[in-house]
């Protein structure tokens, strides 16, 4: 299995005009280039996602702003491009905002918090594939790596909430801690089903299994339940509405990020939108057949011979994967404008009394299903 790292390293070693470098230096260079690519992606992703969210909310709530703001003298009007000027202005504005650290705050921890949160979301992209061989590192423990690294982020949230010395921030951080640890269990257990069936923690093996058999969401009735639990828990892990209690603006100002401003604040922002992408990518890869073409799946089912109409291949793969991810992100935004925020006790109730028993039962039933039917 190749990866971006392998192909870039090969390309580097092929450059004859470069002086001889030890493999370790090449490895650092390659990882550095890929890291820059991911950073660019995360920044652009936040811009596009915010634009997208404004559009979705504007359509759903009939808002005027995001539909009208133009760019470079163009009048936006109620068209697709209306409101794009707002997004560009946002990016510039964030760098121009004053950076304040409250006098009463715990300075080192206040500064450290967003770094951890951002670093966790940033590092998670190493393990996420976007096509055959299109991944930075195709870990043999891929699923495990992502679940582990994404849960580091909560440390950053607790640190920044506590260090702000603000009651709202503290409440937000505590809620966030309770929420993230609660929803991590159903999330992990739903992933477990996929690992049980595919027999591997490597993303490429999981996708290969789905290509050889069928997408996990239609594999058995229990994987449908697992998919639903996974998606909802993922929304909760990303602190998105209706699980946005840690940053509930109507009660806690902005929760754990109340005291942050300027670029430090935008780190929270980047991480939130990045974690939306991470959750959507995970869901798409693990349950929705990743970059596999749905057309090919249906045609293969009816025994149609392979051909161009299968719409599969590297570029089509990217198209399908991004399409699935975009749809899942749209679903998350749709949630936001549809459901009211939960109360903390309802949140805990959902995680511990609904999802956890179902996830435990799911392990049992999928085990039976696999042993009896497969």
């Amino acid at each position, binding site marked *: 299995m190749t*990866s971006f*790292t392998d192909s870039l390293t090969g390309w580097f070693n092929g450059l004859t005009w470069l002086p001889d470098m030890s493999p370790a230096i090449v*490895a*650092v260079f390659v*990882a550095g280039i*890929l*890291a*820059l690519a991911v*950073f660019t992606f995360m920044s652009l992703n936040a811009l596009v996602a915010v634009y997208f969210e404004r559009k979705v909310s504007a359509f759903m709530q009939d808002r005027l702003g995001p539909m009208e703001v133009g760019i470079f003298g163009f009048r936006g009007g109620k068209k697709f491009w209306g409101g794009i000027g707002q997004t560009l202005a946002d990016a510039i504005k964030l*760098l*121009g*905002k*004053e*950076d*304040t650290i409250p*006098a*009463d*705050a715990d300075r080192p921890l206040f500064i450290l918090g967003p*770094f951890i949160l*951002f*670093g966790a979301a*940033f*590092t998670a*992209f190493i393990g996420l594939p976007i096509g055959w061989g299109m991944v930075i*590192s195709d*870990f*043999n423990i891929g699923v*495990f790596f992502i679940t582990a690294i994404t849960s580091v982020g909560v440390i950053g949230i607790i640190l920044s909430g506590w260090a*702000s*010395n*603000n*009651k*709202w921030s*503290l409440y937000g951080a*505590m809620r966030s801690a*309770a929420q993230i*640890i609660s929803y*991590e*269990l159903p999330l*992990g*257990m739903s992933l477990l089903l996929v*690992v049980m069936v595919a*027999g*591997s*923690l490597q993303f490429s093996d999981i996708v290969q299994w789905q290509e050889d058999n069928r997408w996990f969401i239609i594999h058995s009735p229990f994987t449908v339940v697992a998919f639903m639990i996974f998606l909802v828990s993922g929304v909760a892990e990303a602190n998105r509405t209706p699980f946005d209690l840690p940053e509930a603006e109507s009660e806690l100002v902005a929760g754990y990020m109340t*005291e942050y401003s300027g*670029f*430090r604040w935008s780190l929270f922002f980047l991480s939130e939108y990045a974690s939306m992408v991470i959750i959507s990518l995970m869901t798409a890869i693990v349950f929705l057949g990743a970059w596999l073409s749905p057309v090919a799946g249906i045609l293969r089912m009816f025994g149609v011979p392979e051909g161009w109409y299968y719409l599969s291949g590297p570029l089509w793969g990217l198209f399908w994967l991004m399409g699935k991810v975009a749809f899942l992100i749209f679903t998350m935004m749709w949630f936001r404008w549809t459901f009211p925020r939960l109360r903390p006790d309802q949140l*805990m*109730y959902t995680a*511990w*009394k609904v999802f*956890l028993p179902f996830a*435990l039962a799911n*392990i*049992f039933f999928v*085990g*039976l299903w*696999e*042993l009896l039917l497969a």
Partner: protein
Amino acid sequence: MYSDFAPIPVFAVLSVVLIGVALFLQRILAPAEKTALKLSVYECGEEVEGPAWIQFNIRFYVIALIFLIFDVEVVLLFPWAVVFKDLGWVAFIEMLIFLGILTVGLVAVWSRRDLDWVKMKVPYGQGRYAKLRGSAE
């Protein structure tokens, strides 16, 4: 094999560096006029009463303990899940015993009402609430 993990430290270091660059840019671009009021903590515009570093009732702290147990369980389940199909019924039944014990734990916590927001074992108006009720009337 281990080279798969090489990007992790590089990414970790670079995330710090890239944030540092952006913060430096901000330092150049952004205004910096600090006033005492600006540096105070924002709690809806009210004057702040004391620090936030106080002891308060963190609900669901029992849940944090349960979470630790269940999280260890999930970690243990992942390697099991990888070899589950190769080992078949033996692995399945062994894990069922293990999961069964944990489920009993969950049921115990549930019936002890540690998963509830208000842990009221004694109905309102009885026991230690009786006096409270009397004073209200």
